[in-house]
């Protein structure tokens, strides 16, 4: 049983790798950049999902991505550092900021955490808006350097940058996956499902909440760095309320129960995005509707589809006998009262 699952997964990954390697040469530069942005968003949703393993939904995630972006913009722009060291340092800075935020945040849970995380992220964003030195204020920063060249490969061009992003994304996903499968990941799950029990067994829940938030923040920072060195300009609005909504839609739509769920969610929705491009002004409304419909009718997101298909199929097999339909919305997250 185990082997067939690993076989399928390996097969899927190989196919994706091949497709990913070939695709940029078949598409226009516009779509190559689009895929690059998809990679950024994949890192974003995956790191967000990591935090949900322990039971909390964080609205500070986009701001933390912005922290990585601003850090790298300043380190490469003002300080003149090259790309790769800046990537690492900026992600670490995002992680440190997450650590600082987690000091008050880890004392909250559930809905409190949700709101407090928004407050923490927003406070940081307001600093970027308010202080023209060094953040560029409302209009943000521009003229951010690209990663330069290695030999003949010029990373200011879409296709080389695409592969850069692809590589970094693959590494990040691998690292995050390892966290999930490690004992740390098991502890996160244990805390989520039985917090009191975990505490009684010796788990310092506050420490683990801080840890997961820092890890999430670190990878959000990485995503921000990849973003900023392709766009060459950033502003506070890119990390505010509207992008946060999109993140929520991707995650709710894809589901948070599995590692791949959010990734599939963001990919599907990005595809739909493109198909609906002529109706671009209606997009936020469309996303709002998807969000609400998903919450009402498919609370587990896309991850719930196989199960529902199964039970639908089984009901048909039973001769169409009406059986209990679990359409009552389960909690998307559990509200914990501590």
């Amino acid at each position, binding site marked *: 049983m185990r082997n067939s699952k690993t076989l399928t997964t390996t097969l899927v990954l190989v196919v994706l790798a091949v497709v990913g390697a070939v695709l940029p040469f078949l598409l226009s530069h516009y779509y190559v950049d689009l895929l690059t942005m998809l990679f950024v968003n994949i890192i974003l949703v995956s790191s967000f999902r990591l935090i949900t393993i322990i039971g909390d939904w964080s609205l500070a995630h986009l701001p933390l991505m912005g922290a990585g972006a601003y850090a790298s913009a300043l380190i490469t722009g003002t300080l003149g550092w090259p790309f790769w060291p800046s990537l690492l340092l900026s992600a670490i800075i995002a992680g440190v900021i997450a650590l600082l935020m987690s000091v008050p945040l880890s004392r909250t849970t559930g*809905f*409190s955490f949700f*709101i407090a995380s928004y*407050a923490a992220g927003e*406070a940081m964003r*307001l600093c970027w808006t308010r202080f023209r030195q060094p953040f560029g204020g409302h209009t943000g920063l521009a003229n951010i350097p690209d990663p330069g060249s290695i030999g003949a490969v010029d990373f200011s061009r879409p296709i080389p940058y695409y592969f850069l992003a692809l590589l970094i994304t693959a590494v990040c996903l691998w690292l995050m996956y390892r966290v999930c499968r490690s004992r740390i990941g098991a502890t996160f799950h244990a805390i989520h499902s039985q917090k009191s029990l975990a505490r009684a067994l010796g788990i310092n829940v506050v420490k683990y909440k801080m840890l997961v938030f820092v890890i999430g923040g670190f990878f959000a920072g990485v995503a921000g760095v990849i973003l900023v060195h392709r766009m060459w300009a950033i502003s506070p609005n890119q990390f505010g309320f509207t992008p946060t909504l999109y993140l929520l839609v991707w995650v709710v739509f894809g589901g948070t129960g599995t590692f791949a769920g959010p990734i599939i969610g963001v990919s599907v929705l990005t595809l739909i995005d493109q198909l609906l491009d002529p109706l671009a*002004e209606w997009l936020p409304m469309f996303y*709002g509707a998807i969000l609400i419909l998903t919450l*009402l009718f498919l609370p587990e997101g896309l991850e719930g589809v196989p199960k529902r298909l199964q039970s639908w199929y089984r009901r048909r097999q039973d001769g169409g006998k009406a059986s209990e339909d679990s359409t009552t919305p389960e909690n*998307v997250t559990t509200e914990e009262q501590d």
Partner: protein
Amino acid sequence: MIGQTIANALITSAFYALVAVGLTLVFGVMKIVNFAHGEFYMLGAYAIYVLYARNSWPYFAALVMGIVLVGILGAVTERIIFRPLRGQLIPGFIASIGLVFILQVAVGRLWGVGKMKRVPAPYKGEVVRVGGVSVDVQRIMVFVGAIVLIAILILFLNRTRIGRALRASAQDATAAALQGISVNRASAIAMLIGCAMAGAAGALMAPVMSVYPYMGGMVIWMAFVIVIIGGQGNLKGAILASALFGFLDTILTTVFDSTISNLLITVFLLVFLAIRPQGLLGHAE
């Protein structure tokens, strides 16, 4: 200078209270935070724009009609969106965020996004001067309107059967059922009233500020902070918190600027949530 600041602060507090009280009512009865509350505020302003500015209705008729329409829309969204999610804090909140964008885009498509709309003041820029303090009449109307509507609400909640049932419902759904009102009915009424009050605030403010689809964003965050710190679902607390933050915001904006005010209040909220020993659902125990 101080007198002017106090006058401004009073008006701001009354305005915030009008918005926050509606949000508090919804939270108390439905245990859901409606982040689209700001959009109902916006819709109230648009009602004035469409009826009064574009179609020359008398101002008060437009005001009343706006309040009614927004209230009804609120009840509709309760039925469709919030009823199935009642009691689930995070899903309900996320759904309300979805509603924010639906309403913003709808309004933007209907009446355009570009330039902000100006609504002519019913009392053309008349200004009252007392001592060294000057306030324009429309702002005084906001102040008076807010106080009147909140007073009506308090009377309603304390003196009428439905109102008392709503209060009971905020404590305990079974108690409400005993009072003869179903939870569904209570939720619908709470949402109707809550959104209507937000719409009223928008309608009163329309002549004072520009009308545009994203105007709700300025208001919702402050209302939100007030509801949380005022003790979610606690009307008295909300009113007190409105006064506190009305003054705080005015003073900070006068001394520094609005971004700094926003920043400090946001940090205040963060610290508040971190220090509170219990979660948001528990009342002080």
